[in-house]
């Protein structure tokens, strides 16, 4: 049936044939008109600005090219070798790993705890939810700037706490030892509310009779929590983990106003490394190679995770 639509096509092309279609009732040419008018804009934009560029990144990564004219200097896989030989790349990769670890070990448990507290109704619960969600709405750039003030060694909040103890305030963002730690704290500040909201939504759509049944059967509150509520939340937890990891791998906007990846590349992420090396210096081949590596990591992770943990969804 579907094929017939494609073959018997020309009738519907005009597009302004509504009255004709009307006289014929539900027929294939009405459908065809919709198909050729409604699908192409989205598919074209998506192909042109998402899919093709990713293919092109793979193609450009084989060239030594500064982006001007056409790429001619083919160097095969050398760009990948150059990237993998750069210490800063491995630092960036390690930092992305750290971000994933902090997201999973600190952010998600915090979000879950808060969600369990705030899913219940009490005075101020809704206000607190909104407050905790607020950082997620702020732009990463604004968040980064706010915290570069918080961390500022002369005027910042941290500095003034230090001074009340009579100590010389540190410049957290300017030291290779502390810059990444400072970034990690901002990440928790900004994103825990997002995961909290996911959990609250899940808790609210949860079948409460199961919890009540467990309570009637003599389970304590914490037993009901551990053996009934949390297992029922597993699908959301898996999803939250997925978002946390995918987001962690692509972090960029937050790093720029805080440290720009420095000092000495100590707080680069893969994307800020890509930006600093590929885009600001227009080393298109090199930058594309970083992009492709990022792509492979993200897509491999996504497919593996979906396959292993989210099969039933």
């Amino acid at each position, binding site marked *: 049936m579907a094929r017939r639509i494609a073959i018997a096509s020309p009738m519907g092309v005009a597009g302004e044939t509504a009255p004709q279609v009307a006289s014929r009732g539900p027929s294939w040419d009405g459908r065809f008109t919709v198909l050729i008018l409604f699908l192409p804009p*989205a598919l074209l934009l998506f192909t042109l600005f998402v899919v*093709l560029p990713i293919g092109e990144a793979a193609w450009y990564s084989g060239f030594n090219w500064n982006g001007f004219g056409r790429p001619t200097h083919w160097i095969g896989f050398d760009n990948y070798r150059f990237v993998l030989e750069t210490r800063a790349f491995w630092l960036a990769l390690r930092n992305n790993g750290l971000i994933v670890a902090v997201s999973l070990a600190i952010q998600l448990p915090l979000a879950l705890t808060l969600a369990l507290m705030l899913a219940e109704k009490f005075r101020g619960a809704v206000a607190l939810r909104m407050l905790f969600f607020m950082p997620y*709405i702020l732009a990463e750039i604004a968040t980064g700037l706010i915290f570069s003030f918080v961390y500022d060694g002369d005027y910042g909040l941290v500095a003034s706490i230090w001074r009340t103890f009579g100590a010389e305030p540190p410049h957290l963002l300017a030291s290779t030892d502390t810059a990444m730690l400072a970034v990690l704290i901002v990440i928790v500040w900004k994103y825990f509310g997002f995961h909290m909201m996911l959990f609250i939504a899940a808790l609210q759509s949860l079948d409460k009779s199961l919890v009540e049944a467990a309570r009637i059967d003599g389970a304590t509150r914490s037993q009901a929590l551990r053996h009934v509520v949390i297992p029922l939340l597993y699908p959301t937890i898996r999803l939250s983990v997925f978002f946390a990891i995918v987001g962690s791998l692509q972090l960029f*906007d937050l790093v720029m106003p805080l440290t720009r990846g420095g000092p000495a590349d100590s707080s680069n992420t893969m994307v800020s490394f890509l930006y600093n090396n590929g885009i600001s210096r227009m080393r298109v081949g090199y930058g594309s190679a970083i*992009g492709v590596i990022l792509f492979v990591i993200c897509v491999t992770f996504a497919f593996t995770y979906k396959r292993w943990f*989210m099969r039933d969804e």
Partner: protein
Amino acid sequence: MSNADTTSAPFDPAVLFKTAFLAVVAIFVLVPLLATLLGGFKSLGELRVNPFGLPTHWEWQNYADILFSARYWQLLRNSLIISTLTVTLTLITASMAAFTFAHVRFYGSSMLLSYLTLGLLFPAATAVLPLFIKVRDLGLLDTYLGVALPQVAFSLAMSVLLLRRFFKDIPYELLEAALVDGCSYIKFFRYVTLPLSRPILATVGTITFVNSWNAYLLPLVMLNTDALYPWPLGIMVYQGEYSSEWHLILAFITLTILPTIILFLLAQKHIVAGLTAGAVKG
């Protein structure tokens, strides 16, 4: 599970712990925000000795100078143009595609939909260098459209999925009846689907708007002229110029995040709905 706390004794240690915990987190979230807002009301000298407290002397001038500067309004205007373009184009293209995927049966439908859905997995950073070259070759570098079109493309996957799921809930019998009565698919889309779908259109629109309003990487790559900068780029430039005059930078930050916060308070229902709807899907 919900009423246990309100009826418990006032000195229940669990309640005490919970209150303390919530208070600590609330302070953690609030202090940077409040310090930013209040910092904009202080002089640089006072900021250094009194970064936490209320200003002893309120420097309204910091805020006034920015509010009366052309620069501030230009940034907001640029952001507004780019975001509006992005939202409009996303809603038009995504709703048309979603309608087709929801109601028109054709060969390859599910394949095309999965193709589009793959977009959810692709990291935008991978595409950004080739995108720059493509946008340059199209002559759109340093234009609003050069930023908006890639943003639309990247928001399509999620938008189409959300809209399609909603459209599918409009009973197919309704469409069938309309078609028998001589209505075309397009008319049905225009006069039945879209009006019925206002809540989801608002949700998708709000989320796209917020993403575009806050975006940094794409505008950074596509725009070279200060006069076209949206506010995230502009505020970075501003911070660079006023490097340690934190009182002015804080006032500027406050005034640029204010529209976001107002939008959030107005549209929080849509933002949260879209977030959780998108989440359930995975």
